């Protein structure tokens, strides 16, 4: 058993002059304060990686800088799934009695700390160094390949994917910390320039600076009660060339493992936080997990189901697509927003009922999957 006792999130976008460690510190301070804990209470620390600050031992670098001396600390790397993987590991560690209050933190000046090309090049290295990377693929190209096949199988059109970009922007407008606040339409998405077909600029998440943190505790530290009830993972491939199919990626398997631990039925889920690096990512994950039928997620968006007032509110902070994506902190923003919703602190974005939430993240090219159920006690 474990509880998420505090959360912290910086605005995403440009943080000129602020480093990885600066952004991690801001988010961590905010999460500690939210959990009503002091530095001395933190006996575990998990962090991710930063492309602008590669280091063999980022967790201890951060621990020294921030001023904690945990009994357990290290960094982990699972690409975009890192945020949820850290929270899952914190849950398992607390549950096993290894630590009582684990600070989970990520941050990166991914936007202003390097050129956009070097960010794109660094990310494209998730491809196979011998058999893929020499062909000049980009991350949008890997996802463009996936989109082409998935849309072919289920008869989706580019306009269907665009619905998710519009929805995430609509949500981001209600969050002052989001990177983008200009409303967009399906026509705007369709008219944005092609990056790697069928994906257009507005189908892709941005590169951002930002930080996010949370505390996972054995016992509640304040009046809030958000419990992690079960987590699961699945890792079916790394490279898109080696994926067995481009329609079943392991998301359903990860959710099933989490469900077996938590006992929560998919039909009980009131709020969804799903990784949305691209519009196609969100489409496939929703449909593979079973939160929408195959090929039906776009019509669910048009029906308002995933809106703030809908049957299953989704990524109400705007997701990676419009809140922004700073690396490991990207998916953690989904967790922070879920916590705010579950504790009725989401202000103008507050949904009616977020008592049971399902979170899902993926890393690589739909390679690594982490799922998690949260429940308000």
């Amino acid at each position, binding site marked *: 058993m474990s509880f998420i006792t505090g959360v912290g999130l910086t605005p995403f976008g440009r943080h000129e002059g602020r480093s990885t460690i600066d952004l991690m510190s801001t988010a961590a301070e905010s999460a500690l304060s939210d959990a009503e804990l002091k530095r001395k209470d933190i006996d575990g620390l998990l962090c991710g990686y930063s492309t602008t600050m590669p280091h063999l031992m980022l967790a201890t670098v951060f621990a020294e800088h921030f001023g904690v001396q945990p009994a357990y600390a290290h960094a982990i790397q699972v690409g975009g799934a890192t945020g949820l993987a850290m929270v899952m590991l914190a849950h398992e560690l607390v549950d096993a009695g290894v630590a009582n209050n684990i600070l989970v933190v990520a941050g990166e000046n991914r936007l202003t700390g390097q050129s956009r*090309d070097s960010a794109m*090049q660094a990310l494209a290295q998730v491809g*196979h160094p*011998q*058999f893929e990377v*020499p*062909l*000049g*693929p980009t991350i949008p190209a890997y996802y463009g*390949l996936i989109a082409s096949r998935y849309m072919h199988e289920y008869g989706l059109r580019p306009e269907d994917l665009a619905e998710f970009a519009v929805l995430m922007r609509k949500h981001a407008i209600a969050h002052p910390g989001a990177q983008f606040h200009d409303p967009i339409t399906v026509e705007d998405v369709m008219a944005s320039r092609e990056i790697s077909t069928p994906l257009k600029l507005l189908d892709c998440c941005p590169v951002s600076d930002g930080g996010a943190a949370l505390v996972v505790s054995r016992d509640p530290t304040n009046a809030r009660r958000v419990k992690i009830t079960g987590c699961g993972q699945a890792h079916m491939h790394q490279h898109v060339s080696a994926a067995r199919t481009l329609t079943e990626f392991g998301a359903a398997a990860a959710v099933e493992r989490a469900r077996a631990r938590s006992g929560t039925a998919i039909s009980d889920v009131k709020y969804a936080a799903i990784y949305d690096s691209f519009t196609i990512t969100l489409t496939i994950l929703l449909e593979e997990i079973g939160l929408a039928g195959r090929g039906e997620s776009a019509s669910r968006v048009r029906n308002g189901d995933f809106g703030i007032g809908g049957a299953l509110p989704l990524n109400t902070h705007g997701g990676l697509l419009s809140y922004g994506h700073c690396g490991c902190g990207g998916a953690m923003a989904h967790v922070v927003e879920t916590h705010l919703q579950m504790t009725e602190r989401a202000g103008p974005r507050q949904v009616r009922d977020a008592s049971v939430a399902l979170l899902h993240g993926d890393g690589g090219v739909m390679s690594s999957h982490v799922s998690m159920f949260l429940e308000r006690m």
Partner: protein
Amino acid sequence: MTKAAISEATSIADWTEGAEAVLYQSCGACRHVWYFRRGFCPSCGAENPQTKQASGKGEVYATTIVRRAATPEAKAHVPYAIVLVDMEEGFRMMAHGDNDLGIGDEVVMQFKLFAGALAPYVVKKT
């Protein structure tokens, strides 16, 4: 672009070493077939897999056209198609190809220079 050889050496060369060939491997024990070279079968673990040259015939499984490249060398080629091809021997590989290729098209393998190095390039079978 520098080549990162992460697989075990084989006696025959392929496109990653500048030869106009695509190689794949198969397992004598369990009949598994795969593309990324290694010294054992990733399905059953048997050693000494066979390394063979592919016929070059296949079918397009997925396709994208890159219009925004990340490296200066690749930018000179924009727009370029990247495809996943299901080869007739039973493995899938990434290649370049004509921009008008669609899923399900039957293709044959050729080779073209990309960013200064030889790369597999598929065209529609005639």
